[in-house]
């Protein structure tokens, strides 16, 4: 396999030129690469299908739609706000755009399994720092709270944003992440170190931007069961195929005991009763939420943030005892108040919803999506008068 001397030099020069060319292409791609007709990161262009959209793509998606005079509404949070359960034409964030009108631009950057402090929050923070008018909307629930900017399937976005100098250098967040990294088992710490190093390199070489651009437009290189029918096809050939909800009679039947345990878990270990048998958020949990907010949401973003606390489907809530329901309600109300106490608008969704508004314990159907879109539109108007 040994080449003669001249050919060897040519090969090395070619490798260097190829590397520089690829980095340059990656840099270009990080500026313009984004899914066409983007509505959300549906399953086939999400980490579920081994597609990890680079941070630059998220910003590019938001800015591509924005025009001076408009307010950007960046949607974050988890699968509920991603719209799992709603076919793309019925997507709640599309309805929110219609309700808000042309003075707002709604961009749904929610990922399955993400937290309010992740991904979309970083885009909102970055754009706000650069002077764009931004409202950040995310969903969560009392036990999940804000989450942490790193960790999980979309935590890599924090490292990318950090090394691309998009974030504000918020010391409490950085300290908390540093402390968290120290607590990880060696394997996970190594994984985080790799994620971090890859993000640092991405800032220089844009290799992830280039790979995702090629994977979206031309050819994908990693097999995945989610796209087993067309594993190598460009991801732009794969439509958002979120199915219609099953008929109401067929929903909520699977894993009832497990789901009930989760529903109870939302408040079981979070509340205590006072002398009048009234439920309240327990002191330690109250403090945890306070700490979470203070360490993860930067102060300048808080007045521009709306948090929606999603309640579980009434099918399950109705199976709780009266005391458990009261406990659940108290935990939501107290949590919402803590968010508000930190200057963050917060509302609870689902209090007047019916079972038909859900496809399962947590995810909203098209009907539920319409309701949450109305709630969010109303909250945004109260929060912000353009």
């Amino acid at each position, binding site marked *: 396999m040994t*080449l003669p001397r001249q050919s*060897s030099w040519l090969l090395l020069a070619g490798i260097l030129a190829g590397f520089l060319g690829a980095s340059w292409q990656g840099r270009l791609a990080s500026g313009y690469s984004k899914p066409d007709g983007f509505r959300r990161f549906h399953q086939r262009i999400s980490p579920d299908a081994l597609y990890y959209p680079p941070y630059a793509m998220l910003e590019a998606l938001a800015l591509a739609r924005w025009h001076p005079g408009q307010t950007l509404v960046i949607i974050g949070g988890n699968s509920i706000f991603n719209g799992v359960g709603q076919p793309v034409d019925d997507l709640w964030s599309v309805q929110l755009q219609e309700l808000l009108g042309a003075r707002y631009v709604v961009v749904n950057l929610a990922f399955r399994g993400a937290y309010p402090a992740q991904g979309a929050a970083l885009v909102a923070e970055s754009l706000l720092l650069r002077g764009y008018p931004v409202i950040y909307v995310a969903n969560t629930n009392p036990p999940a709270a804000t989450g942490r900017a790193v960790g999980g399937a979309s935590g890599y976005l924090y490292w990318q944003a950090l090394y691309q100098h998009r974030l504000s250098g918020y010391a409490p967040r950085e300290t908390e992440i540093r402390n968290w990294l120290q607590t990880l088992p060696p394997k996970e710490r190594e994984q985080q170190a790799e994620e971090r*190093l890859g993000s640092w390199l991405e800032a220089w070489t844009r290799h992830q931007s280039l790979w995702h651009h090629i994977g979206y437009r031309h050819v994908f290189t*990693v097999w995945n069961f989610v796209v087993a029918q067309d594993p190598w096809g460009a991801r732009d050939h794969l439509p958002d195929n979120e199915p219609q909800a099953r008929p109401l009679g067929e929903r909520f039947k699977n894993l009832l005991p497990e789901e009930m345990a989760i529903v109870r878990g939302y408040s079981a270990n979070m509340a205590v009763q006072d002398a009048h048998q009234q439920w309240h958020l327990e002191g330690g949990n109250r403090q945890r939420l306070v700490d979470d907010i203070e360490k993860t949401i930067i102060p300048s973003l808080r007045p521009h943030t709306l948090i929606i606390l999603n309640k579980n489907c009434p099918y399950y809530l109705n199976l709780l005892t009266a005391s458990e329901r009261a406990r659940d309600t108290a935990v939501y109300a107290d949590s919402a108040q803590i968010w508000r106490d930190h200057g963050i608008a917060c509302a609870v969704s689902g209090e007047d919803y019916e079972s038909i508004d859900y496809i399962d314990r947590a995810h909203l159907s098209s009907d539920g999506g319409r309701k949450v879109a109305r709630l969010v539109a109303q909250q945004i108007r109260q929060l912000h008068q353009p």
Partner: protein
Amino acid sequence: MIFNTYWFICFSAVFFPVYWLLFLPGLRRAWLIAGCAVFHYHFAGPAGVIPIVVIGLATYLLALTRRRLLCAVGIALSVAALCFYKYALFLSTDVLGAVYPAGAVALANSARAALPGAAPLAISFFAFEFVHYLVEVGRGREPIRRPDDFVLFAIHFPSLVAGPIKRYYDYLPSLRSGLARVTVEDVAAGLQRIALGLVKKIILADNLTLALNFYGDRYDSLTLGQAWLFLAALSARILLDFSGYTDMAIGLSRLLGVRLPENFNYPYLATSLQDFWQRWHISLTSWIRDYVYIPLGGSRYGLARQLLNAMIVFALCGLWHGPAWHFVLWGLWHGAGLVVNHAYPRMLGPLGRSLAGHFARQPALGWALTLLYAAFGWLLFFYEPLRAWSMAAKLLALH
């Protein structure tokens, strides 16, 4: 996989250019030792490094005496370390547990308490290289005098994780040549080999692994054709994975100007099982031949003893791949195949000789049989015996 981590890419981006720019062999040597130590420490951690340092130091010092008995002590130390770190739980629960369950539980609990979370990185490769070194010195070869030469032989980072298993008398001259001069041809050839390895490992083998994991869980619902395709993918995957990794190791070493032995030579083109084992994981096969099979007597004491030796050797070869019965069975599968392959021309008389002649005239037939035999063996390598049997039965339409 270590060679495609971001850490290793950053390490390489610093390590190799400096190595090339240091023209003085002494400086290059120091830089290489530092690089190997950093690499080993990063991926093995202190718990993985300390045992290797202890065993390595003992091996180095014992070999310097050139006394056979002390070399044997060193060999026993390496083998004991390998057995302790890699096989203690298997030996206590699976082997002792079969005959003396109560004692096995106590022994397993003691082993769990004493063992680190994971065996030291590449303990099998360390043990095999140290044993090779001590055996050769015990047989009269010159030991390595310079401690830095020994350190580089022990922790030469390209081959540290998955071989090839080096021979010190081949390695040291090549190391000295690399320290004296790395040519542009070496660098170009090394990069080509790394690229080949990356394509085999990341593009082909890793994708096959993902698909095999998915379809492996659904194997029972596959059609007969799909099941055969699954077997073909399984066979391709192990070759591409391992040979890809070896290509990267050889390529990285070539970037240092150091040549490592080849490990694969188109094994799926073998026309007999004997031929297969001269082409598959060559450095392991030759190690087992030289340090287990021949000392056991090899073919010197008649056919029956030779066949028994082959079975023992392949059972150990299987066990080397991991502490589980299915690896042992995989080794025995190949041992039995080799026994038949070797014995039938003599055992079956004229019919055997006629068959052997037929295979000699029709190499394609031997190739097809060997490939099938090796492919069915991979079921035992990857799956528990009952599962492997059930998968094989489906392929043979025995369900």
